[in-house]
């Protein structure tokens, strides 16, 4: 996949401030093949920065993980772009076959979550539909040389040639990055895993499928505790499934899960072993004037993310982004229309399956902005403080690299100004589902179908 990887080299000149239709975001890098013929296996399905932002992991449908590392030199220079280069590539999951149910288990990486770093090695959890794995990524830049019994190439020496005894010493070698699976957490999910989330206690994590949420200890693979089970006794009575779940960033007893009905439940593990009774239910009453055949589908929560502060929570459904104050369950405190112009197109989007697309969302490090993807390779930024939003495009064709991105407007009328596009001209095959925001700097990474885009915001 990354054999044909290429990167823009950008010469950044002085950047003008926020002008007319210009943002402060610039394209920094694009990773991936440039040809239009996309292999199914190369389609990116997960993007995640680690806790320091130094590493950026991507997963694809072929079960592979590619980790990029930020160059140390450019990181400290204020005006320089933060260049990410390939650090490690490994096959995380392979296709499997469930013989009992005669079902193939896809190797597609659904989620990647980093563990906070404790030592020189990096750890991440990756999951496909059925199995979660803990990977250790470590560097090796020295190797022992001067063995007594072996030659340098590994061949054993003849005993008669051994006349001296020496202590092997570590000599520098070319940097080698190794990824090794340390734990495999399998056979705990009947349905398809949609979320994993590491707890703030750094010892446990949760995994969620359509009907159940399990709690694991990182050290134990042979057992997990079921903490949520919404499977009805009679499956014909099923009305709701779990779509996303996350632990609170600070309170190790608290987690939330979103449902296909548009509600989010907050649970406290101290209340009981099985958290079927929620502590809080976040649900906004539906607006009856917008009811349609597709109301159920578009209200389904596709992603839920706590703010870094732990005070707020963000949910993404098909058309909107909602910010909730954890202290208020009745309605969100902020609602942002991502692409409201699609409301009148739901029937067509149902036919071409786009209505089932699951968009992720993410918070800026200081929680002042949020971001999510849309169609036509657009992504949406919402500035909560300034109550301003912008539509930007992930494209290496439009505009010159290094210059600030122009903002777009989607219009329904026939007249087109520059940087306006009609709703009917949107390309629904080009979509941004996966996004991640650097935890400290203003760098965002997002995935189009098979390319990874990295954007950087320029300071004034």
């Amino acid at each position, binding site marked *: 996949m990354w054999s044909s990887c290429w990167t823009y080299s950008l010469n950044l000149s002085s950047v003008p401030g926020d002008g007319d239709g210009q943002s402060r975001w610039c394209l920094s890098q694009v990773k991936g093949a440039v040809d239009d013929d996309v292999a*199914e296996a190369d389609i990116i399905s997960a993007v995640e920065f680690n806790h320091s932002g130094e590493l950026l992991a991507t997963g694809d449908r072929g079960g592979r993980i590619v980790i990029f590392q930020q160059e140390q030199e450019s990181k400290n220079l204020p005006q320089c772009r933060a260049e990410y280069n390939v650090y490690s590539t490994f096959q995380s999951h392979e296709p499997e076959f469930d013989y009992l149910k005669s079902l193939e288990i896809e190797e597609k990486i659904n989620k990647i979550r980093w563990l906070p770093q404790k030592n020189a090695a990096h750890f991440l959890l990756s999951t496909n539909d059925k199995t979660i794995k803990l990977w250790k990524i470590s560097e090796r830049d020295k190797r022992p040389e001067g063995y007594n019994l072996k030659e340098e190439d590994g061949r054993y020496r003849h005993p008669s040639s051994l006349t001296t005894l020496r202590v092997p010493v570590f000599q520098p070698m070319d940097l080698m990055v190794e990824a090794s699976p340390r734990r495999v957490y399998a056979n705990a999910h009947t349905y398809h895993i949609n979320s994993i989330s590491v707890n703030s206690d750094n010892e446990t994590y949760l995994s969620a499928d359509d009907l159940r949420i399990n709690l694991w200890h990182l050290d134990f693979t042979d057992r997990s505790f079921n903490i949520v089970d919404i499977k009805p006794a009679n499956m014909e009575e099923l009305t709701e499934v779990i779509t996303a779940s996350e632990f609170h960033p600070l309170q190790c007893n608290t987690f939330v899960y979103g449902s296909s009905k548009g509600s989010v439940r907050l649970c406290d593990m101290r209340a009981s072993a099985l958290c079927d009774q929620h502590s809080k239910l976040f649900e906004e009453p539906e607006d009856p*004037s917008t009811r349609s055949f597709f109301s159920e589908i578009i209200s389904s929560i596709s992603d839920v993310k706590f703010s870094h502060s732990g005070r707020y929570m963000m949910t993404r459904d098909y058309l909107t982004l909602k910010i909730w104050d954890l202290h208020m369950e009745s309605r969100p405190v902020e609602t942002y229309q991502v692409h409201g112009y699609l409301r009148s197109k739901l029937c067509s989007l149902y036919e071409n399956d786009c209505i089932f697309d699951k968009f992720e969302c993410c918070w800026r490090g200081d929680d002042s902005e949020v971001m999510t993807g849309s169609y036509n390779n657009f992504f949406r930024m919402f500035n909560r403080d300034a109550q301003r939003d912008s539509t930007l495009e992930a494209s290496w064709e439009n505009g010159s690299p290094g210059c600030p991105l122009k903002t777009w407007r989607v219009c329904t009328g026939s007249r087109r100004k520059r940087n306006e596009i009609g709703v009917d001209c949107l390309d629904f095959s080009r979509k941004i589902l996966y996004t991640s925001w650097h935890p400290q700097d203003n760098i965002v990474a997002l995935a189009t179908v098979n390319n990874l885009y990295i954007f950087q915001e320029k300071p004034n």
Partner: protein
Amino acid sequence: MDVEAKRIMAVSIGKLYSLRTQRGGLRLHRSLLLSMTMRAARDIYHTAQLLRDAEEEQVVPCAPDAATEEPMEISKDSPQTLTPKEVAVKPQETLEEDKENRCASERHSRKRRGKTAVEPDFLPLKKAKMDTDEEKQHLQGEVLRTNNGNSCRQAETLSAFPTNRAIVAC
């Protein structure tokens, strides 16, 4: 309105069938959403059908609120407007099912037909096959089609179709 509902029903059934051959096994979330949409469309369709039958036979209408249905338009500017009573809710479902049995007419028999009966054209083939055409469509260009206000194509008369539960228990 009922033509649109029938179209959505047909699309939903087709998608539910194709879900079974998808790699990775049946997706519970998707099949739940599809079956909910299909049921909502089916209820609207049946309501409209009953109305039409009642009008033709000059009997008391079966569904009290069905007369206020409006066509669902898909246009660029105006959002879909459906008042809550037009969307079938679960209690109505059982009511209508009973009325289906009571209001059966000669032309539109609601009895499930045997295997030898002719099935509507829009139903996909029951023979399991690898259907990769849909997936290919996703990867290639997908431009939203404009329909110039005509939200549905000409559909054939629906005679009977299986109304078994759409979700296969995992």
